[in-house]
């Protein structure tokens, strides 16, 4: 395991100790969700400003429009030039509306892919900063291929020859988050969350009542410590005391250190090795059982298919 990951591991143990070693309670999880969504929490442009003094934001997907819910550009920081892409929520009402609350449409993901192509051409590492309640649910987004844009963004990231790091800095919910999250290393800030869906969305579907968000959050257990234990996050990055919103400079400094270390490890690998390890990383994720099959028509594992028979023509 990598140095950064081990450091992350020590940190998780510290975190676990702080939580009394027992699983996080519902109210602790809910508190984390509030912190992950805190309106003063640093957003990608806050980190970029501090880590990449020279940053040039790039706009537009060259196909349809520009999506302000995703910021993307090139910057030179302590580790040289990089491509940075992130979900940008707004801080006040005007900006939130402008940025669509950090919910991208297909143009956002296509802008990301376009800038990743630049990274490939110029051999620049890619950093993504994830913070979204999900991809935007709207008829226009659907017409212009929201599903395909998310799928192809993952595919593009999977095929990158350059090193890549994703950092969940706030809330990472649904495919709208994962679209920027298929990387060599996945980091999560101490008070960030990563989940299949936002607690409100999950509550609306599973409890048929969006007000049951707290119950949903308790069930999804989307905290950094859990994601680290499940192998979804490789590294948990500490935040300043009280949370990243208390001290943007310190939050950026801490994140910058972890990114630098991981980047050095990744740059020691060949592009082919990085790509293979990236594939294997995602190929391995899953939790399932293997049972003895009682169904006589179903093939048992290891039996030659030619000698097994199944229910051709046996529909009910």
């Amino acid at each position, binding site marked *: 395991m990598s140095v950064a990951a081990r450091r992350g591991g020590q940190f998780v143990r510290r975190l676990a100790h702080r939580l009394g070693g027992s699983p996080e309670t519902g109210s602790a999880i809910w508190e984390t969700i509030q912190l992950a969504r805190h309106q003063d929490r640093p957003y990608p442009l806050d980190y970029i400003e501090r880590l990449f003094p020279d940053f040039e934001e790039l706009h537009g997907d060259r196909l349809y429009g520009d999506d302000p819910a995703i910021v993307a550009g090139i910057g030179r920081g302590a580790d040289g030039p990089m491509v940075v892409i992130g979900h940008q929520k707004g801080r006040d009402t005007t900006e939130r509306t402008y940025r669509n609350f950090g919910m991208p449409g297909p143009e956002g993901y296509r802008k990301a892919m376009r800038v990743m192509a630049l990274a490939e051409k110029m051999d620049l590492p890619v950093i993504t900063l994830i913070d979204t309640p999900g991809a935007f649910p709207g*008829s226009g987004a659907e017409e212009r291929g929201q*599903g395909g844009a*998310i*799928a192809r963004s993952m*595919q593009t990231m999977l095929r990158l020859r350059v090193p890549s790091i994703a950092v969940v800095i706030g809330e990472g919910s649904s*495919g709208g988050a*994962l679209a920027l999250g*298929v990387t060599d290393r996945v980091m999560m800030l101490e008070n960030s969350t990563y989940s299949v869906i936002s607690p409100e969305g999950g509550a609306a579907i599973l409890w048929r009542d969006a007000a049951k968000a707290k119950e949903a959050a308790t069930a999804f257990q989307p905290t950094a410590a859990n994601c680290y234990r*499940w192998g979804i996050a490789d590294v948990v990055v500490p935040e300043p005391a009280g949370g990243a919103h208390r001290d943007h400079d310190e939050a950026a400094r801490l994140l910058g250190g972890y990114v630098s270390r991981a980047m050095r490890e990744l740059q020691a690998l060949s592009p082919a090795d990085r790509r293979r390890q990236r594939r294997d990383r995602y190929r391995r994720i899953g*939790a399932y059982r293997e049972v003895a099959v009682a169904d006589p028509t179903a093939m048992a594992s290891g039996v030659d298919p030619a000698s097994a028979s199944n229910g051709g023509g046996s529909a009910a």
Partner: protein
Amino acid sequence: MSKRPITVSVDRLLRKRDTPAPRKLPADERSCPKCQTHWTSDEMRRNMRVCAACGHHFPAGARERLDQLSGGAPWVELWPELRASDPLQFVDLEPYPDRVEKAEAAGSNEALVVAEIPIGGHDCVAAIMDFSFLGGSMGSVVGEKLARACDRCVERNLPLVVITASGGARMQEGVIALMQMAKTVVAFDLMHDAELPVIVVLVHPTTGGVWASFASLGDVTYAEPGALIAFSGPRVIEQTTREKLPPEFGRAETQLSNGQVDDVVDRRELPARIGKVLGILERPSGMAPAPAVTMARAGAERAANAARTLPDLSRRVVSKVLRSDDKGGR
């Protein structure tokens, strides 16, 4: 959009004259919701669960679809022993294991059935989703089966045919289910490197994380008439944006005009259409595989090796974190 609905029954296509006249009976699951025509179970089966009067496509189970695709030729199911576990000890209105148990009792073992099967005389691997199993939701088993299906294709130089029907990622497996999206994209990338074709058929409904991952990445993509194909469902969109959506929102015909699918294909024509595409894309046998194929094979082998250690890994993850996975086989 301008497609005329196809209302010819298979019997008529086969020049059989014994198609009975439509009957009107009290509504049940064999009554067409569109035109109220009632069909016997046998008529439904022979007509591939399509209303012969109006062309409405009824839901079809994965195994029945395999029979339809193979034209009754035998097929072999792969990895039926893979079953859902409960990594999060998830309880919403009902504990997840209870939901799984009920779904299994209803006859399917998971939301994806994989088989080796001939379609139109071409051997392939088919991965068919079953909406009746927990809304066709994609959890770890769906991801693992699809990944193994692609490995098998690479191993045996076979094309992949996928039929999707899903509400999206399986909420009850939390972020682990979300990650299956990336896992399926990895699997399709092996097909890409091995230069093997992937045909995707989108059936009603294909939404959420399935549409936003492998379902969008076919080389040739068909949709069944009337299928809802969307990342966000109409209800979610209406609640979020207060838009009023037309009934044709996200339907296969709309997605054809949006440029999201290659064609809308009647279920009764699917086996022939898929067979035709497989025939066009088939490589002459004995032809040396492209250099990329060798690479992809190596990749598939590594993946298969990784898969062999996977139960251990998942058990380790599950037991270490939540100590929940010793219900064992049933």
